[in-house]
């Protein structure tokens, strides 16, 4: 039998390398997935430009961060990026409202097939992607400042006396707190406010909602506002955690869609659950369990291979496989979304 310390060490090891990162990544995905689901249930199309919109919001944040830093408007120890997020949200909102006005509105009014609008959103995606690369260049940028860790692995070890450390990064803590806040606000908004209720009614039955005097333009504008908030926050949190490069954001498209479909397309709660299903599977399947089992198993049984289920390079493939499994087994997703 392994000692209590060994079990604790194994658990801390797993938390440090899998559970905490998965929680963070899941929170980032959840915000993106929530945005996709909102667009889906109100505007009725799968928004392929979501990942690039996130990149756009982040790019605006980086520019503003640079400006604030050059002016010395910073709080020591606090990420400047978070200070400027509200401004970046305003810019992203304007940008999304412009795409709505110039692009999507026409198809909405003419009741175009949803697949045509999907195609249009791919056009928007390329314009946004091109714009971001034009402004920021293709290289990776780190824009996080302030303290990197709330506590480091070493501090944790000294504090607990264990041989494994659990580090908590600033980006991880801010991600989890901010995501909780944002999701809470969105749900409060949808459940309690008048316009939120109008949005749900519109999503449920468009004709009936129009008949009862709901202003569709107002509903759509509010949706884009919510989407802009979620998109910018998701993008900035992801960027603070992993650094900003346009291509990285582009790769997020598949996990985001997988989250939405796994959770049930059109269901906000589903999007969040789906995001965590995706993030935890990605991390759990690509982690090498060798050290974990060394703690738990007696010396005679110690493994000599890495005990990795799937190579790390297939991280993004995991979401696709889960997507396929869900489509095969339960196409409506975990929380019965809309299908057909």
């Amino acid at each position, binding site marked *: 039998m392994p000692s209590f310390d060994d079990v604790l060490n194994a658990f801390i090891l797993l938390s440090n390398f899998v559970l905490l990162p998965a929680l963070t990544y899941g929170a980032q995905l959840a915000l993106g997935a929530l945005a996709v689901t909102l667009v889906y249930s109100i505007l009725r*199309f*799968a928004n*392929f430009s979501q990942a690039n919109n996130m990149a756009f919001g982040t790019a605006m944040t980086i520019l503003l961060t640079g400006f604030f830093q050059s002016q010395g408007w910073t709080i020591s120890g606090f990420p400047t990026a978070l200070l400027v997020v509200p401004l970046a949200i305003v810019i992203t909102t304007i940008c999304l409202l412009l795409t709505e006005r110039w*692009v999507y509105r*026409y198809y909405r009014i003419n009741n175009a*097939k*949803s*697949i*045509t609008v*999907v*195609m*249009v959103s*791919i*056009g*928007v*995606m*390329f*314009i946004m*992607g*091109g*714009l971001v*690369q*034009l402004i920021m*260049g293709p290289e990776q940028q780190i824009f996080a400042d302030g303290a990197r860790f709330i506590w480091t692995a070493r501090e944790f070890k000294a504090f607990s006396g264990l041989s494994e450390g659990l580090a908590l990064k600033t980006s991880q803590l801010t991600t989890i707190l901010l995501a909780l806040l944002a999701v809470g606000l969105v749900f409060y908004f949808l459940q309690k406010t008048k316009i939120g209720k109008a949005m749900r009614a519109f999503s449920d039955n468009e004709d009936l909602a129009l008949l009862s005097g709901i202003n569709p333009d107002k509903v759509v504008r509010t949706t884009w506002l919510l989407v802009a908030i979620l998109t910018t926050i998701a993008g900035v949190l992801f960027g603070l955690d992993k650094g900003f490069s346009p291509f990285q954001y*582009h790769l997020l*498209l*598949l996990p985001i*869609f*997988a989250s939405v*479909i796994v959770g049930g*397309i059109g269901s906000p709660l589903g999007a969040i659950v789906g995001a965590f299903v995706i993030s935890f599977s990605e991390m759990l399947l690509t982690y090498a369990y060798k050290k974990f089992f060394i703690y738990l198993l007696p010396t005679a049984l110690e493994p000599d291979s890495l005990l990795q289920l799937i*190579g790390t*390079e*297939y991280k*993004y*493939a995991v*979401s*696709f496989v889960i*997507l*396929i499994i869900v*489509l*095969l087994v339960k*196409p409506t997703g975990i929380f019965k979304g*809309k*299908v*057909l």
Partner: protein
Amino acid sequence: MNNLSHIWQSHRQTISILVMVFLLAFVGVNQSWVLALSIFNLCLISAIMALGVNIQWGYAGLFNIGIMGFAALGGLSVVLISAPSVPMAVSAGGMKILFALCLLLLSIVLSVYLSKHKYNKGWVVLSLVAGYFSMRYFYVDAAQAIEAVNPSKTGYLGGLGLPVPLAWLAGGLLAAGAAWLIGKITLGLRSDYLAIASFGIAEIVLYIIKNEDWIARGVKNVTGLPRPVPLEIDLQQSPWFEEMVVWFNQSSLSLLTEVEKTKALGILLREYSVVFVKLCYSGLFLAILVALIVMANLAFDSPWGRKVRAIRDNETAASAMGKNVKRQHLQIFIIGSAIVGIAGALLVTYTGQFTPNSYQSLRFTFLIWVMVIVGGSGNNFGSVIGAFFIWFFWVESTPMGLWLAETVQNFAGADNGVSAFLQERAHFLRYIFMGLIMLLVLRFAPGGILPEKDKKL
């Protein structure tokens, strides 16, 4: 003005062909004929891809955004079929890896059988998990053994060493197989699921090709693939080719002295051999493109085509008449993807190398889609025209961007930030332009350059 638009309306096809010929000739005269020919050849390959996508979109409204995945499968098959085999690697781990893959396949077949016959879901999962782990048990060693064989030159299994045209067919089949898998799962569900799933499979195919070096050397690329046309070097040394070059340049060569003549002939030979090889490819691709278009058009006018159109225009009515909509969509998705696969194989044959990193999944997929939309969705010849124009502007946009930067510089004087910025980042403007073109065409001219002709059922 009215008159002009009338001429355009009634001669869209002729005018667009003439414009294209003029543009290519312009490049030929001002830049070089070799460049014009290589643009032309890539236009032809894009046209074949666009044709495949057009069949899916125009015939059945299927939105496939995994084009690069299917094209990569086509390219891969050129490596697998026509590259020379590496006996050392095959003996090092060929059988073992084949066995591992068979195990995986067996477990998948078993689990499909189990789930079809309503066995407990646990058994299905168990069969898959057992299959995966037993596959991995053999696979990892075998892959390492194969990759260890002369890693700088081979390090992969090699191909079968069969003739290249077979590889094109195999490329089509491989892509068709992947399309069958995706179609089977997503057709019959929401229409955007197909888009998402095809996007996913393209990414996965590319991940696998890039990371599993034993298949096709991954990102180390396979170069020097066999070609169906003669090599430039061979041409330069063959007497009949020299005679031809001399005959073409009789008048100018006769003015020179003997010494000058041999020197000039050497340069001419090199130039002509490159052009000749490119022309051979052009002929080949053109023949394939024409054959595919003729077949597609014949099919579209046949009873089969009437059924397809009936389903596209009103699914509910067609299924009420007893047509199997899902089956029809699957069929069309497979046919279109197979054509994309063939085009992918042709592309690799043309460049003579398989470079997984060059398949940037969304970028080129998007480009093909712009071609289809601009050309005229539903019109096969339209997608060819679209392919020509879009590829032409895609390639020529870099010189154009540089020209723009230069103009800005001349206009605003040297050393201003704008032109330097443009020069550095000009190629990102292409995406914005392509996106804008797509949005504008979708909105204001949904029919494209050559709209689909109305056919009476």
